[in-house]
């Protein structure tokens, strides 16, 4: 029988630093909730809004797979591997921090805020060589179907990371439904609703709600309204 966990949007941790408004689905920085540490290998799901021209100065990371998905606006990235890039809505960025990197992230726009998800997944191997990847996705490929945006395989659709994980985005019209089949036994899926209302089996989710489901082989997704959502399949034991 499937096991589930529901994280309503208004129960997330929240930090407001003036230039940064961040909602944490799991314990992060000064938000510590022992009941909200992770969902399997998914450790961080931050829903960030950064003021125009502001951002995160140079800071380090190691041993973490870090995925950034811009939702609105442009995010400028610079790192110690000499990557300089701007990621925008429709792009996805993946970074394996491995043995250690430095990077900065700034809102490239001087007038409008940037909104983006920052997602951290525990790697399946410590101390890998740091790497960076960024691609532009075709937004039509998620209209009323699931678009794979991340996998463990370099030759597969989307970016890849050092973990047995698959991410999909969907932008469904009201009434559209589909079935998701777990790709790897022992994995679970954390669903995060970007906008609208979605049902996972019989569980109704609203904007920015999170819902984990595991010990199941499949589940159904139904758009109760026009809706956008992110599915993150990750190992529950890692």
């Amino acid at each position, binding site marked *: 029988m499937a096991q589930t966990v529901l994280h309503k949007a208004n129960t997330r941790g929240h930090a407001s630093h003036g230039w940064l408004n961040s909602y944490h689905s799991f314990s992060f920085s000064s938000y510590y909730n022992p009941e909200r540490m992770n969902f399997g290998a998914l*450790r961080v799901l931050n829903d960030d809004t950064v003021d125009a021209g502001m951002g995160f100065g140079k800071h380090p990371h190691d041993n973490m797979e870090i995925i950034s998905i811009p939702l609105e606006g442009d995010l400028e990235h610079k790192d110690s591997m000499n990557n300089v890039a701007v990621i925008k809505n429709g792009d996805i960025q993946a970074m394996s921090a491995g043995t250690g990197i430095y990077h900065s992230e700034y809102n490239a726009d001087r007038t409008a805020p940037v909104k983006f998800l920052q997602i951290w997944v525990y790697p399946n191997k*410590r101390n890998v060589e740091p790497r960076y990847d960024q691609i532009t996705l075709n937004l039509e490929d998620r209209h009323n179907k699931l678009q794979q945006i991340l996998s463990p395989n370099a030759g597969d659709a989307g970016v890849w990371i050092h973990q047995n994980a698959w991410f999909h985005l969907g932008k469904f019209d009201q009434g559209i439904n589909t079935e998701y089949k777990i790709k790897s036994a022992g994995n679970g899926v954390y669903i995060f609703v970007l906008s609208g209302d979605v049902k996972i089996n019989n569980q109704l989710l609203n904007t920015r709600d999170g819902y984990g489901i595991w010990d199941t082989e499949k589940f159904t997704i139904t758009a109760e309204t026009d809706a956008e959502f992110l599915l993150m399949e990750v190992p529950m034991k890692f």
Partner: protein
Amino acid sequence: MSKIQILAICRHPEILQTIIRLVNNNPDWNASGAITDEEAIATFTSQPFKLVLLGSGIEQDNEEKLKAAFKAHNPDVIIVEHYGGGSGLLFAEIFQGLEGR
């Protein structure tokens, strides 16, 4: 009340300094750092550490040797594998370790 002593080990000097700075932001904690295994063991045996953070770049074999050496010296020491590099996970990792989770 005396501070909780925490030893952070990380091969990357700048990340180690970040970890130490962040740990020391908590007034109840005091961090020491080491880059090499020799330095780590010498530091560990010089004062009573409650918790050890194993950061990036430590090879698997060395990590096992360090854990064995620390446990031999102090069986109650809490050893935590640190992920993220002096990041937003650090406090939660330490709290979890101290709470025995």
